C-alpha cells in the first residue's frame, strides 16, 4: 500500500495568540509551533496501516523552510519519505492547498491519501473534501476507525457524525480525513528523531506542480472575538422564562 499523508505546522493552540496591530494577521514573534494534532492522527493511521499491510508512507506539508521541523517529526514517527511544497501561509487558501495536493496525488498515485480533518489554526475543514472532488476520488471524512478490505483494494471507515457512527466503504484510491478518536499518535523516540534529522526532504514549488496560484479566499482583516459578557443569576424558573422572553427576546 502506498499512502500519502499530510502534516501542518500550526500555532500551539494552548498559547494565547495576539493579532498584529493593523489586523493583517497573527503576530508570529514568540509564538510556538506544533504539528497539527489531527495530522498526527492521520500519520499514526498511515504508519499503522503500512505496518499491517506493507508499502510506504510519504508525508507532505505545504509551508516555508521552517515547516521542515514539523515534517521531520512525522518522519521520526515512521514515515518513509518526505516532501515539502514551498509556500507561505499568506499566499495560500484551502482551495489552493487542495489543488496542490491533488497534483501531487496525481504524480505519486497513492492508494490512500490521509489528512487531518482540519488544522487547528484556521479550522476551515475544507482541504480533504475539495481535494477528493478535484481528483474524483471517493472520500471518507472524520474517520474514527479504518479497516482495509478486499485485499487492499478498499477500506471500511467509521465516521463520527452527529448522533452516532456511520460506516462507509471507499474504493481505492480514496481520501480519508482523521478525527481525534481514530488513534493515539505514537511518540517518536530520540534515535528515530536523530535519523529523521538526516532524511532528505524533497522540495517542490507550486510552479513545479503546475498549480495556478490565484486564491479564492481573500482575507480582509483579523479581529478578536468580543469578550464574553458576565452571566446573570435567575431566582427561579418563572424569572428565567420572563428574562428569556423580555430581555433576551428568544421566546
Amino acid at each position, binding site marked *: 500500500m502506498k499512502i500519502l499523508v499530510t502534516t501542518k505546522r500550526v500555532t500551539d493552540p494552548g498559547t494565547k495568540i495576539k493579532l498584529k496591530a493593523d489586523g493583517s494577521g497573527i503576530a508570529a514573534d*514568540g509564538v510556538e509551533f506544533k504539528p497539527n494534532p489531527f495530522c498526527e492522527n492521520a500519520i499514526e493511521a498511515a504508519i499503522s496501516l503500512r505496518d499491517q499491510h506493507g508499502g510506504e508512507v510519504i508525508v507532505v506539508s505545504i509551508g516555508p523552510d521552517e515547516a521542515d521541523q514539523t515534517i521531520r517529526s512525522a518522519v521520526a514517527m515512521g514515515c518513509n519519505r518526505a516532501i515539502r511544497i514551498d509556500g507561505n501561509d499568506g499566499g495560500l487558501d484551502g482551495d489552493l492547498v487542495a489543488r496542490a495536493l491533488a497534483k501531487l496525488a496525481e504524480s505519486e498515485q497513492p492508494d490512500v491519501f490521509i489528512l487531518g480533518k482540519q488544522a487547528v489554526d484556521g479550522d476551515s475543514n475544507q482541504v480533504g473534501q475539495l481535494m477528493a472532488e478535484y481528483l474524483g476520488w471517493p472520500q471518507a471524512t472524520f474517520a474514527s476507525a479504518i479497516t482495509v478490505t478486499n485485499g487492499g483494494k478498499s477500506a471500511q471507515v467509521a465516521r463520527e457524525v452527529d448522533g452516532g457512527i456511520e460506516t462507509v466503504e471507499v474504493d481505492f484510491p480514496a481520501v480519508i480525513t482523521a478525527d481525534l478518536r481514530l488513534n493515539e499518535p505514537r*511518540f517518536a*523516540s530520540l534515535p528515530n*528523531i536523530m535519523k529523521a534529522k538526516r532524511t532528505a526532504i524533497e522540495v517542490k514549488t507550486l510552479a513545479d506542480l503546475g498549480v495556478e496560484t490565484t486564491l479564492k479566499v481573500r482575507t480582509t482583516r483579523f479581529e478578536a472575538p468580543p469578550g464574553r459578557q458576565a452571566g446573570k443569576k435567575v431566582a427561579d424558573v418563572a424569572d428565567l422564562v420572563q428574562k428569556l422572553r423580555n430581555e433576551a427576546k428568544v421566546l
Partner: protein
Amino acid sequence: MKRPTAFLDVQLDATELALRQNARRFAETVIAPNAHEWEEAEYFPDSLFRTAAKAGLLGVGFPEHLGGQGGTVMHQMMVTEGFIHGGTTGVMAGLGSLGIALPPILAGGSDDHVSRFIRPTLAGETIAALAITEPGAGSDVAGVRTRAVKDGTDYRISGSKLFITSGCRADFVTVLCRTSDDPHGGLTFFVVEKGMAGFSVSKHLQKTGWRASDTAELAFDEVRVPERNRVGAPGSAFLTLMKTFQAERLALAAMGHASAEFLLEAAAAYARERKAFGKVLTGHQVIRHRLAEMATQVAAAKAMNYAVGRRVALGDYLVAEVSMAKNFASDVATRIAYDAVQILGGMGYMRESAVERIARDVRLLPIGGGTTEIMNEIIGKTLGI
C-alpha cells in the same frame, strides 16, 4: 507575555527541540490529567514506567546499544522541560529514579548486570532505586555504616537506608555499602533485589512535596547477596559516585529552571486575568516589576544550565560549574515559588492549583543530590578559594 527564554532556543538543535515537544505532549496528555489524583494518593501506577519507556522518554541519555535512547544531558534537560507541563515534579522524580540508580551499575561494566538490571529498567519492565543516604549519614557520604561482609561466595548486608526515591516499589536497589573501614576507599555498591530474605521496606515516608513519588526507609537484616551482584571492584564506589553525582545535580538544576519557568508562566497568566482595585494585577506596577524580575531570574538560571549542560554533553568534567548551576537554579526556583504563590494570593495556597504543588516541590532542590552548603564546599575547594 512573550517567553523570556525564547532567545535560548537558538542554542538547541532540531533533535533537542523535537524531543522537548514530545515530552511535553506526553506530559500534557498522560500525566497532567492525573496529576492531582496521583499527588493526593502519594503514588502513580507502575505501568507509567512502561508507558514512558514506550514513548521513548525513559532511557534518554543512556546508550542505544544498552537499550537506552541515546542522547546527552542536553536531551535529558529537554525531557525535564517537557515533563514539567504534567504539573507535578513528583511523577518526574519517581520516573527519574533510574537516572541515579543505573549509572553506578553501568560504571561497574558487567554484561550480566546490563542484561539483568539495565535493559529491563530502561524498557520500563523493572523499577530501580539508588540508596546512599542513611539515618546517620546524609551529606557526609563517607559516614555510611550499612555493612557488606564477605561470607563464602556471598555477602551479608546489614543496615538501613533513608529517603530512597522509588524505594517502596523498586525491583532492585543500588545500595552503597561499607566493605572496609577506609572512609572513602571502603565503599562498594551492591544490587539488592526485591524478595531477598532480610530486605524490606520499613516505611513509606510522607513528604512536603514530590508527593506522587514514593520515598522509602529500607531495612537490610543480614541480607544474603551473591557476589555477582557486587558492582565493580570492592572499594570502587566513592570514585564512581563522584562522577555520577554530576549528572544527578545537573538534572536537579534543570528541574529548577523548568519549575521556575512553569511557575512564572502560570503567575503571569493569572496576573493578566485577575482584577483588583478596578484593574488587572498586571496593571499594578509592583506586580509588573515582580514578574519582570522573575523573568530575568528564570532566563539567567536557564542560560547557566544550558552553558554548563552543553559542555558536559561534549564530555567536559565540570565539578564546580555543575554545583554552581544546581545552587543557582535551586535558589531561583525557591524564590520564584514564593513570588508565584504571592501573585496568586489565596489561590496559590489551594491544593488543586499546580502552582501550589510545584511551589512545595521545589523546596527539595536545595536539599536533594547534595545540599546548597555542600555544593558551596565543593565550589570552594574546586576553585581553590
